[in-house]
């Protein structure tokens, strides 16, 4: 079997090709959609000459990988769409605190207490409502979605969706476990076993009148409206009254890994991302809210500060996640 030896040699050769990254390049473990990250990164590379390798995956899987790899990781930064994952990594000690001067322009509620991660863009959990249906002006709270009269008329994502889980965590913390449990039970009945795997499909179903309302991240509504400007849908910012809990927010953010050997370079990238240009670009591609005070979001989006946001620290999204998952499982959400 003369081919075995070269084969083995070849395999060893391949094994030894360590991912030799140049001295002035960075590796990001990225759980955020490539298409939203690439434009900003390209701009950073253009300005600084620093190459960036995006290693895409699911945030949770990448975080698990980072944890197991320990000091052998090749990741210099970790980027996630969910503050829960960032806080989890922080609690595990996978990140290093950033220079406080770096993050001073980001409001404290959107970054870690110990500065191990910083939020870059925020999204709001809102209602999308069909403007031609009977429910056009009747909904003003996420809790209304559990109204028995809405049976078969609402759209929610399946319970493995990160934004959905984060939203439930906020409601649980702001409105209490029992109220949230009750609400989930109502949602489960109203969804009639049909849940969606994509927010965009919920918006589409509402626009087509198959559903009256849905629970989504705000930008999905504007994404749909950009393609179909006449779609009969509108955004409802829920739970605004004096007794309302406010809108649930979640942030996408970035952290520098503990074991990076290029902390200075990594801080350069973070500095760019929290700069005004970086902030605008990072948030605008997805119509999210920049976390830096004073940088406005896209004009079509309701301005930050014009409505009430639920008062739940982002860190809770990580710390209370298992409790949320327990609740979701107890109710048996599909």
């Amino acid at each position: 079997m003369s081919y075995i030896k070269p084969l083995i040699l070849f395999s060893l050769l391949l094994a030894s090709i360590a991912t030799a990254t140049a001295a002035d390049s960075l590796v990001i473990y990225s759980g955020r959609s490539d298409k939203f990250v690439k434009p900003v990164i390209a701009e950073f590379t253009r300005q600084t000459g620093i190459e960036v390798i995006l290693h895409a995956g699911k945030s949770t899987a990448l975080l698990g990988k980072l944890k197991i790899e320990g000091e052998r990781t090749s990741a210099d930064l970790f980027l996630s769409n969910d503050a829960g994952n960032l806080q989890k990594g922080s609690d595990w000690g996978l990140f290093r605190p950033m220079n406080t001067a770096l993050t001073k322009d980001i409001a404290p509620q959107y970054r870690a207490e110990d500065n191990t991660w910083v939020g870059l863009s925020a999204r709001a959990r809102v209602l999308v409502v069909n403007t031609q249906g009977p429910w056009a002006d009747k909904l003003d709270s996420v809790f209304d979605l559990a109204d028995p009269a809405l049976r078969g008329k609402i759209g929610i994502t399946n319970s493995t969706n990160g934004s959905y889980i984060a939203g439930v965590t906020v409601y649980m913390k702001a409105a209490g476990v029992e109220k949230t449990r009750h609400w989930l039970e109502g949602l489960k009945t109203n969804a009639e076993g049909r849940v969606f795997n994509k927010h965009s499909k919920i918006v589409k179903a509402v626009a087509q009148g198959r559903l009256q309302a849905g629970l989504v991240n705000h930008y999905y509504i504007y994404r749909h409206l950009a393609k179909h400007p006449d779609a009969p849908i509108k955004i409802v910012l829920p739970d605004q009254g004096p007794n309302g809990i406010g809108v649930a927010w979640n942030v996408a953010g970035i952290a520098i890994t503990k074991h990076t050997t290029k902390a200075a370079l990594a801080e350069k990238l973070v500095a760019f991302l929290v700069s005004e240009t970086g902030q605008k670009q990072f948030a605008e591609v997805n119509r999210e809210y920049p976390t830096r005070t004073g940088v406005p979001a896209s004009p079509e989006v309701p301005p930050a500060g014009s409505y009430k946001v639920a008062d739940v620290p982002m860190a809770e999204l990580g710390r209370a996640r298992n409790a949320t998952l327990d609740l979701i499982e107890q109710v048996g959400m599909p």
Partner: protein
Amino acid sequence: MPNPSLPFVRTLNPVRLNSLGGLASGVVLLAAVPLLFVIYNSLQLSTQQWLGLWSSRLPELLWNTLSLAVLVAVGCVVLGVSSAWWIARREFPGRKLAVWLMVLPLTVPTYVFAHIYTTLMEEDGWLGRLWLALGGGADTIPDLYNVWGATLILSLAGFSYVFLLARAALSQSTRSLEEAARIQGASSLEVFWRVNLPLLRPAIAAALAVVVLHVLSDFGAVSMLRFQTFTLSIYLQMSGRFDYQSAAGLSLILVMLSLTFLVLERFFRNRQRYYAARQSRPQPRQRATPLETGLIWSWLGFITLLAFGLPLAWMLSWSWEAWSQQLIDAQFWGYARNSLMVAGIAASVAVVAALPVAFYNARHRSLASHTLLHLSSVGFVLPGPVIALGILSFLLAQLPFLYGGLAALLIAVVIRFLPLAVQSIDAAMAQLTPSVEQAGRSLGAGPLENLWRVVLPMIRGGMATAWVLVFIDTLKELPATLILRPTGFDTLPVRIWIEASEEMLELAAPAALMLVIGTLPVLWIMMRGESATTSNP
């Protein structure tokens, strides 16, 4: 029937047997690393946690997983045996093409199947619109997010295995038995039930083993359809809660379930050995009547439409979109190259690694050899993400210098698909009548020469099949690749996953199409080898 291997074993030099056994044990030990990882992690679970798992999840998971496995097995047998029967026994226009059409679905990964079908069944998808045009309501469009949807997808993706093995068995089975039955006055139906089907049983059992193991380890389709099987639940434990211990506990139960199934299957197969004497006349194909031809092609056409036509049409139409928007750039070809490279190396390594295990079992049928054989299957029954984490932890702790390049990924996929290689080679060895080897030895060939000049040439077909099967599955592999690929090293499945999760269908489709195209040459190799062995008059 006397045990055919006994006289042969006595002539073997015990030292060689031991070194063979040692080699086989070495391979299996490496393959068992992920299992050790699972056992180690599940030992950390307290009794309380085990009880919690037991009461909260297991009944549902067991029911879902087993019912899915049974339904898919039935679906694959119906599709695979019916098509194999027509193709092996009737001569009709386009028969050669039909063989290809029945095998091509192997080139489409389950997650692509699931993605395509859920898209097609939406209200504005092709099938959804057809449904509405036929007078169905938008609310009554069949929902795929349940056991039936998962059954449909996994049957379409897996029946080709049954087809391949059943066709081989049908073409090789000889005429004499059927003629004898007919002389005794049996009708065609009776011949099928009482002669053909029993003769087919080992082939069907072997194929079902492959199918059921694919179902038990499938991650792509069930995660896309959110059907709670063991694999999906294990993944959710790991990704949602970072609860590796519960994930390991569930994995351990899944492994025991699969091993039980494998042992039963082996037991069932070992009791049935049919040696066909070479000189007896194989079954000639009857010319099909026009009516039969019509029926055959309606049935095969229907299967092809669902299992390959629709997916291909979908890929082509979206790829065209991507092409016309000039979205396919140099990077895309890089992904294709990465995929082919990993699959090629993994297939070669897996075949070489499988040889000692299969040899050892063939020559030394014993409790030890069976145990090794079954242990080598753990790769197939553990979910991909679990194998990936097991290998990751093992390499980092024991062989850190291997980490960072392709080695981790290669080791993981070889472990995952080693059972495919072992099964194929073992099946080929089983058909090797011991007398041939003994003849070689009696003519003065040493053990190595005998291996090189007698055994290997005779099992070449089995080795080629093994290579192709591993190649195809590696090409489609997603969960382990996602975790273990080197930084920035994307393969086609990884891109499909990334683009599809961003709903960039026009970018996911070319990658899926590329997978199909990349698989064609190796399928051709396998089919050519097959027709050489099955078409001699």
